[in-house]
């Protein structure tokens, strides 16, 4: 390929983005601070800039480099700002407080009450999650 630096930089930007959400977020060491992905993005950016410098068609290579760097910028925004948009939850029960009782349907449509669950299993771990809608 004529301008391998440019295109490998672009592909690496995409890989750096996707690999965080599909792979590197599985372990706290690469999840909490996405350093592996940041390194991949820096390498991608170096390749993209080198690709533009060597290119005869500056406008086209410039657009590819811009898109690759835009993916980097979006990633930085996603992991530093967007995932922290959460409501405050000051009223959530604290350690030592009573957990509010509730009755909900399980996945088979059977009614389940927290206090009844606690009667049969001495420790219950409630995991609230966003869901798949």
């Amino acid at each position, binding site marked *: 390929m004529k301008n391998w630096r440019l295109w490998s930089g672009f592909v690496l930007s995409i890989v750096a983005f996707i690999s965080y959400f599909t792979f590197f*977020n599985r372990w*706290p060491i690469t*999840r*909490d601070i996405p350093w592996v992905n940041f390194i991949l993005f820096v390498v991608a950016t170096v390749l993209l800039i080198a690709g533009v410098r060597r290119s005869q068609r500056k406008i086209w290579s410039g657009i590819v480099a811009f898109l690759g760097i835009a993916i980097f910028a979006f990633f930085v925004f996603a*992991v530093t700002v967007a*995932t*922290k948009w*959460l*409501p405050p*939850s*000051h*009223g*959530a*029960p*604290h*350690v*030592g*407080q*009573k*957990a*509010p*009782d*509730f009755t*909900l*349907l*399980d*996945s*088979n*449509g059977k009614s*389940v009450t*927290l*206090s009844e*669950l*606690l*009667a049969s*299993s*001495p*420790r*219950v*771990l*409630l*995991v*609230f*999650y*966003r*869901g*798949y*809608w």
Partner: protein
Amino acid sequence: MRPVAISVDAPQVSENLRRKVGYTFMFLSDPNTEAIRSYDLLHKGEGENGHDIARPAEFLIDKSGTVRWANLTEDLRIRARPEQMLAAAREVR
């Protein structure tokens, strides 16, 4: 310790997920966000078509109904790991 997953998903949606992934623990459905609101975990308008959903949070409850461990993440990327929750459960007898 009995893990219980709670979301706004309809029972059938959770059942499909449970079967697909092979989870054996209980899933509870809170479409009207009753329990989610009583735990102050409502995330307004974050779901499909602007529906309210739960923000992620984990609570370990003992047999007296008291919260013994809680985790309210400040970042969607950083939720409690299974090891963390098992360690919390080992502390509670």
